[in-house]
C-alpha cells in the first residue's frame, strides 16, 4: 500500500515536485505559501534527484528564471501568493507568448494591494482571464485538498508539456495551510538529457550541427506574422477547451438547485449541500477542477435541469460571470461570497441559498 503522510498543501507541492522528478524551483517568500520553498530547502533535493532550488531576489526574477529554465526544456516551477503573482504577470505573458511549459502555484490571499494574508479566491480573474498583457490563456487547476496539491504538480507538468503552455495551480490560504492525509504516488525519476531533448526538441540549450538553431522568443514585429501566431495560440486554446475540461459533481442526479464552487469553497459547499438536503432541499454541487478550460457545457446542461444556480466564491463575484455566460439565461444565477480573508461556513451558505431562492 502506498505510504500516506500528513502534509500541509504547500508541503505537498514541494514533496510532489521532488518525487515527480521536477528539475527546478525558483521562488520568493510570501505568506501563505512560504512552506513550499522552506520544505524544498529542508529536503535538499539537489543531493538526491539533482533538482535545483533557488531563492530569487523577487517574484519578477523567479518567474524569469522559470522562463530560462523552461526555455532549456526543463521541468521548472515557482510558487507565490497574490501580490507576488501580480509581479509575475509580465513573465507569465512572456511564457505564454514563447509557448513555454511551466507550473506556477498561486496560494491566494485577499487583496487588492497588500490586502490580507488570510485565504481568498480573488485572483480568479487575474489568473483565469489573463493577468499579463496580450491574448493568452493559462491552463488553471483548482485544488481543494492537500492530495490535489500533490497530484496537480505532475498533472500540471503533463498538461504544460502537452500544450507548451503555462499551468497555474490556483490554490488558496486554506488549501496551502491545511494539513491532510496525502498518499505518496509512485516516484518518477528526473528525465535524462536525452529525454529532455526528445520531450522538448525546441529547447534552446546548445545547437548541435544536426539542426537549425533554436530561438525562444515572443517577439514578431510584423502584424501578419503576429496575427498568424495569435490564431495558432487560439487553436491551441480551443483544443484545450475541447479536451481538458475536468470537474466533479456532488449529489446532482436529482438536484433542483446547484452550487458551483471551486477550490476550498467546494469543500464548504459540499457540507452546505448536505445541510440543505437534510432540510429537504434537492441541492447538488458542481466543482470545476479546471477553471480554464471552464466546464461551460456542463453548466449549460445543468441550467436546463435546475431551477437556479449559485456561484459560491471567496471574492466579490468573479467565476459567477463564467457561470452566467454558460447558463445563458436558462436559469437564475446567484452569488454568495466572503472577502478579506473571512471564510463562509456551511450554515452561512445554506442561509444565502434560502434567501436567494425566497424560501424564507
Amino acid at each position: 500500500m502506498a505510504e500516506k503522510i500528513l502534509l500541509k498543501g504547500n508541503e505537498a507541492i514541494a514533496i510532489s515536485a521532488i518525487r515527480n522528478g521536477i528539475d527546478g524551483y525558483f521562488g520568493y517568500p510570501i505568506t501563505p505559501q512560504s512552506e513550499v520553498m522552506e520544505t524544498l530547502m529542508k529536503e535538499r533535493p539537489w543531493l538526491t534527484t539533482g533538482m535545483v532550488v533557488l531563492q530569487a531576489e523577487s517574484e519578477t526574477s523567479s518567474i524569469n528564471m522559470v522562463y530560462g529554465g523552461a526555455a532549456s526544456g526543463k521541468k521548472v516551477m515557482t510558487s507565490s501568493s497574490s501580490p507576488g503573482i501580480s509581479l509575475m504577470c509580465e513573465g507569465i505573458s512572456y511564457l505564454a507568448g514563447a509557448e513555454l511549459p511551466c507550473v506556477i502555484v498561486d496560494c491566494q490571499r485577499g487583496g487588492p494591494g497588500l490586502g490580507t494574508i488570510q485565504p481568498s479566491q480573488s485572483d480568479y480573474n487575474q489568473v483565469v482571464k489573463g493577468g499579463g498583457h496580450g491574448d493568452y490563456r493559462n491552463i488553471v487547476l483548482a485544488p481543494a485538498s492537500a492530495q490535489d496539491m500533490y497530484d496537480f504538480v505532475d498533472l500540471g507538468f503533463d498538461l504544460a508539456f502537452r500544450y507548451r503552455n503555462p499551468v497555474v495551480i490556483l490554490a488558496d490560504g486554506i488549501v496551502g495551510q491545511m494539513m491532510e492525509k496525502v498518499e505518496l504516488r509512485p516516484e518518477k525519476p528526473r528525465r535524462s538529457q536525452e529525454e529532455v531533448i526528445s520531450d522538448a526538441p525546441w529547447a534552446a540549450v546548445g545547437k548541435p550541427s544536426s539542426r537549425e538553431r533554436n530561438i525562444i522568443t515572443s517577439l514578431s514585429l510584423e502584424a501578419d506574422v503576429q496575427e498568424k501566431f495569435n490564431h495558432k495560440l487560439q487553436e491551441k486554446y480551443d483544443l484545450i477547451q475541447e479536451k481538458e475540461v475536468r470537474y466533479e459533481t456532488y449529489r446532482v442526479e436529482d438536484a433542483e438547485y446547484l452550487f458551483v464552487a471551486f477550490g476550498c469553497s467546494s469543500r464548504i459547499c459540499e457540507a452546505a449541500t448536505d445541510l440543505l438536503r437534510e432540510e429537504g432541499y434537492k441541492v447538488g454541487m458542481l466543482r470545476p477542477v479546471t477553471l480554464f478550460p471552464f466546464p461551460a457545457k456542463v453548466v449549460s446542461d445543468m441550467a436546463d435541469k435546475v431551477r437556479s444556480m449559485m456561484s459560491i466564491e471567496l471574492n466579490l463575484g468573479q467565476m459567477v460571470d463564467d457561470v452566467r455566460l454558460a447558463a445563458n439565461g436558462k436559469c437564475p444565477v446567484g452569488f454568495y461570497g466572503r472577502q478579506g480573508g473571512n471564510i463562509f461556513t456551511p450554515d452561512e451558505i445554506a442561509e444565502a441559498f434560502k434567501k436567494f431562492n425566497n424560501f424564507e
Partner: protein
Amino acid sequence: MKEEIIIAGFGGQGVLSMGKILAYCAIMQDMEVTWMPSYGPEMRGGTANVCVIISDRKISSPIVTRYDTAIVLNQQSLDKFEQTVKPGGLLIYDPNGVIHTPTRKDIRICRIDAIEVAARVGNPKVYNMAVMGAFLKMKPVISLDNVDKGLAKCIPARYSDLISLNRRAIDEGMDAVVEIG
C-alpha cells in the same frame, strides 16, 4: 465517527504540534483528517489555534464553527471557544491562569493541570501531550497502539528517546484529567 476539535492557547504551548500529532495518530487508525491552523501575525507569541477534524469518512468542509470538543489552554481561548461547543460536547481546559471558569451546563467540562503533569514527567515540552492524554481519556477515539505509531511518525528517529517520554505524558494526562461538570 466524526470528531471536530478546536485546540487553542498561547503560542509556545504546543497547540499546533498537538493537533498535528493527534492528526497523525488518526491517520495510523486509517481515518481521514484535516488540520487547519489560524496563521499570520497572531502566531508570533500571541494566541494560536488549530481545528482538527478526524473522521472515518471523507471530510468536506475543514472550516466549522461548532465543535464536538474544545481544548482551551488560556483565558482568552476559553472565553472565545466555550460558546462554540455543541450541546452535549466536551470542553477541556487547563486551570492555570484561568480566573473565569466555564459556566455552561449543557456540555461536559474537564480540567487538566498539564503544567503539573509536565513537571512530574520532567520536561516542560511534553505539556501538550499531557493535554492530549486528557482528551484521549475522555474521548477514546484513537487506540493507544495507533497513538504510539503516530508519535513515531512525528518524532524524528534521532530523538527516539523522546517517544517514551511523550507517551508517559499522555498516560499521566489520562490519569490526571478531572471531570467537573
